[in-house]
């Protein structure tokens, strides 16, 4: 299978944007329960801006990630803006300037992005945030690639792990983000950021699978 090219990466962003738009009301409803009812609007605004900027996208993955990160930082605001923004901004240098990314580099870049999220937001696994979806997803990705699976298969595994991580946020009493203000009352609700993060991983799986199929 070919490396991940910028076409695929763009498709990833488009699929993610479409998926956020589709789940906008759900994300907002989840945020209304334990936050301030804006996560759907925030992510949708940001990903629309990202997609609007794609026409002018420069050729290499690092530039694409940087532009995506900067657009998210500029247009989202709230907690998710700096976090998703940082994720993409940190992916850029991890590509080493390659024109297309082999599976390991792609995984390394994602890992660097997650580390950026953790550095920015200081959340550990189990605190009811997007980290709870991203961490098991990247662990699953590494494990699958390590055991020789294709990137498409590995991303499918990552997406399943992200979904599981997302589902796992429900019983947690939040310690980070707005949901932490609710104390015990935050338990029993699925985290909106973990939900959008699972969509992000699922979008990567979809985009790469399509590249494989094409």
């Amino acid at each position, binding site marked *: 299978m070919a490396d991940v090219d910028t076409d695929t990466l763009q498709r990833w962003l488009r699929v993610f944007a479409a998926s956020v738009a589709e789940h906008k009301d759900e994300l907002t409803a989840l945020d209304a329960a334990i936050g301030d009812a804006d996560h759907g609007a925030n992510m949708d605004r940001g990903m629309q801006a990202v997609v609007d900027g794609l026409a002018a996208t420069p050729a290499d993955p690092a530039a694409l990630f940087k532009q995506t990160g900067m657009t998210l930082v*500029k247009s989202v605001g709230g907690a998710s803006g*700096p976090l998703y923004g940082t994720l993409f901004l940190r992916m850029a240098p991890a590509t080493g300037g390659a024109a297309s990314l082999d599976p390991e580099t792609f995984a390394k870049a994602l890992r660097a992005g997650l580390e950026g999220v953790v550095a920015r937001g200081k959340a550990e696994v189990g605190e009811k945030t997007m980290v709870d979806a991203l961490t098991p997803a990247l662990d699953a990705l590494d494990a699958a690639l390590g055991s020789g699976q294709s990137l498409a298969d590995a991303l499918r595994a990552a997406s399943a792990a992200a979904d599981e991580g997302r589902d796992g946020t429900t019983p947690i009493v939040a310690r980070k983000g707005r949901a932490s203000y*609710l104390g015990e009352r935050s338990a029993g609700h699925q985290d909106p950021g973990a939900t959008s993060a699972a969509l992000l991983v699922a979008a990567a799986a979809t985009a790469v699978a399509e590249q494989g199929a094409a």
Partner: protein
Amino acid sequence: MKKLLNDPANLVAESLRGVERAHPELRVDHENRIVYRADAPVSGKVGLLSGGGSGHEPAHAGFVGPGMLDAVCAGEVFTSPVPDQMTEATKKIDGGAGVLHLVWNYTGDVMNFDMAAELAAAETDTEVQAVVMNDDVAVEDSLFTAGRRGTGAAIAVEKIVGAAAEQGRSLSELADLARRVNDSSRSMGMALTSCTVPAKGSPTFDLPDDEIEIGIGIHGEPGRRRVPLASAHDIAEMLVDPILADRDFTGGEGVFVFVNGMGATPNLELYLMYNEIAALLDKAGIVPVRTLVGPYVTSLDMAGCLVSITRFDDEMLRLWDAPVATSGLRWGM
């Protein structure tokens, strides 16, 4: 949803047009959604920057003007503004003595202001310091969580530090003062009803007719606990007791008491609440020396109130009384 607007997506932008038209003493940078003093930057004065999500009016733009803030950044409704706005605002109000960021403690606001400070450090040689305001006793004060929310204390912090900045004090002196006022403040809020975020179009939470939320923030989020509807007398206790349990408010020059309406609660009720609160303070031997009653830090159309108490020392009292000219707070000029 019934609101006075055209398209929810343009609400903040169009409202800022109105602010610009209504206030010739202010300037609005529409691209960056910054409201700032027409005379900014004031040479030799530390610039004071705050801001946050929209929907809290008069906070934040209502506190821009001589004697208070130099600029604020406006985010989407209940959404922190973004670093570019803050960096741009920092540049606009840098009169050569540095810029102090007064940050309301919410994860989003803190991260965005952090990134702005990093950007400003990279792009300019403006000295920037930040003070995070976190006065809300409904939330446990812990290093392992997002910590306490910034709510009512901001009024005292922004007013007092604003007056001190006009005196030409240095950036670190002002940062220290901001921390002192914040440390001297505690707040607790409650909601009778939810609010409706325009982009969502329906109430954030459902609250039955016989229940209220105790320990809310200012973003229409549910509170710490839900209790049966109670009398003003009992509600005052539910708000004041945890505040007094958290800090000593005796001594000094007495306290500043702020009874904030969340948006849809009439001043008639807020004054009645103040009557109950003042009685509780009396009993605790705490002496109010200044009061503010009304909607100053709102959550759109939420009904309810937030009580904020700040222990004043003589310097804080003097600076509170100093002239201020903003659309939200004004006296002496």
